[in-house]
């Protein structure tokens, strides 16, 4: 038997496969699945027809179900066990890096190195796609380092600032 822990929104589903049969959250599930191309599927469950399109994303899968988009993250049973034993390691992070969410122009840096910031406080304004967007702190922190200047063009993912 193989089990997968699937998280969609704030709900977790357990999908199990055993002897060629599938169950979701313990209820057996009959389906007919046709793969249409590398990412598109049509699935019939109790006669209900649904189109799904699936792409990998950083967190798992980016899925369209009958046109509605959901983020899906999947963990196999094995991965979950490994994580339960080793998961504490990640919690110790204290430094937080702020990266550019998209290629953009730095319009203004609103803080200085060493400054204490509160949750919601503006850190930097970026302009992308003709719109200004403010990056804000989500927790109390101190500005450790600022890597960019006003007027600078930054690439997606570029490190802008680190907090601690």
């Amino acid at each position, binding site marked *: 038997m193989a089990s997968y822990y699937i998280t969609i929104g704030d709900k977790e589903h357990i*999908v199990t496969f055993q002897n060629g049969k599938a169950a979701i959250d313990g209820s057996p*599930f009959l389906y007919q699945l046709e793969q249409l191309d590398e990412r598109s599927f049509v699935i019939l469950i109790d006669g209900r027809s649904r189109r799904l399109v699936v792409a990998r994303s950083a967190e798992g899968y980016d899925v369209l179900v009958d046109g509605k988009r959901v983020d899906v993250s999947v963990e196999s049973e094995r991965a979950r066990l490994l994580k339960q034993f080793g998961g504490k390691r990640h919690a110790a992070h204290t430094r937080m890096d702020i990266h550019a969410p998209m290629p953009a122009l730095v319009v203004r840096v609103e803080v200085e190195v060493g400054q204490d910031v509160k949750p919601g406080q503006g850190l930097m304004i970026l302009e992308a796609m003709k719109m200004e967007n403010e990056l*804000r702190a989500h927790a109390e922190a101190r500005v450790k380092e600022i890597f960019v200047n006003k007027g600078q063009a930054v690439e997606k993912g570029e490190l802008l600032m680190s907090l601690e």
Partner: protein
Amino acid sequence: MKRQIKKVLVANRGEIAVRIIRACHELGFEAVAIFSEADRRNPHVQLADEAYCVGRAASRESYLAIDRIIDVARSTAADAIHPGYGFLSENALFAQKVLEAGIIFVGPQPASIRAMGDKTEARKLVSAAGVPTVPGTPDAVSDVHDVQQFAESFGYPLLIKAAAGGGGKGMRIVHSAGELPSAFDAAQSEALSAFGDARVYVEKYLENPRHIEFQILADTYGNIVHLGERECSIQRRHQKVIEETPSVILDDDLRERMGAMAVAAARASNYHNAGTIECLVDRDRHFYFLEMNTRLQVEHPITELRTGIDIVHQQLKIAMGEKLPFSQKDILFRGHAIECRIYAEDPFNNFLPSTGTIVHLKPSQGNGIREDRGVEEGGEISVYYDPMISKLVAFGATRSEAIAKMVRALREYEILGVRVNIPFTLFVLKHPKFLEGDFDTHFVERFFNPSHLEVPSADEAKAAALVTAILESKMGQHSMPQTNHQSAGEWVPSKWRTRRSEIMR
């Protein structure tokens, strides 16, 4: 004077370049595309007969590079240039230089662009022709005291607007005297950085107005017709999202009066070609001229569906010196048309702009559905240009039929790779106030909340769970295309959905 066009340079990109190239082909003209280095794979390049790179991705080095564009037109022997919308379309200097190069400019004369381009001058001009305008400062103001004086006469709220621009840049609403100084400064500096011109003007701010505009066509023989109105009140941050025609608040009498006003405004600037007169209409159905857009409008397709007239064909024919083939009474208005602009932005997440590769795109089809799109599956939504992916347009015999067709088409539309505002447009189209026609330009801020957005049902979520589990178990993960949509997961290690909305506004 008649002058045959054989080849048109399209000085634009994206869906409107595609739209214009198609019209050229339909009229038997060759089409020359220009493109920036970022756009060499784009549909407008593929569709054109010839295509030339005019510079780097940043607009000012390519799509705004006047001399380079005119050079391409000269060297390819293009006899006309169509500017589309945005970019150089309302740049009188560009139009002037095109004419000086002996090339037809598909649009109004430079003097008309200039007259309407300065909002203050435009209001004076049309006022003199008897067109009602919103009370405002007659001239651009540079001193906050002038604004205070205006406020003493007309009261708050006030609107401060850039004299040179559009699209919400340099625009501030001021509700009280206390807010005025900082708002005035901000508007001026935004206007300066956006348009290179810090001048602003001030007008009475109408509360709960509807934004209604009239399409006009004017040939070079003084014949001017209007093609009816477009209701554009559904806006977010001054950006139109959903437009429709007709407007539920216009009856035949008001339509006729506003149509006559639009024709008078065009005539006042000695206007040729297609143009749009934007108005505000208040609760008492008084209307006020706002500005004239001296170019093809993004939302022109809804007018085409309601009138059966191809506006871009008419633009090109007018530019060749042809007479309008119809008079006002020949225009048969029929049915109802709606447009939804599909933007690359995430309505679940404060409309965060979304960039990346479109890994999957399956558009809608079917009776009454038209789509104007300038990007395809595999294409990039980049930071350099407008994030509009598509204009989806629906026609129905009645308003409710048009809405029903649009809802159906939006539900069928599939995009992966970037987040899009489709759930937001569905929210609007299903809102009781929208369905009743009872809305104004504040609809979105008043009624929208991400919690109203439709999410997959429990059964749909289960289908997604099942398919992804099957993929994990059977297929391995190597053959799946990967989205490179930027999610906040790359900034903060966990709980990214919540945090993203905190971090980014």
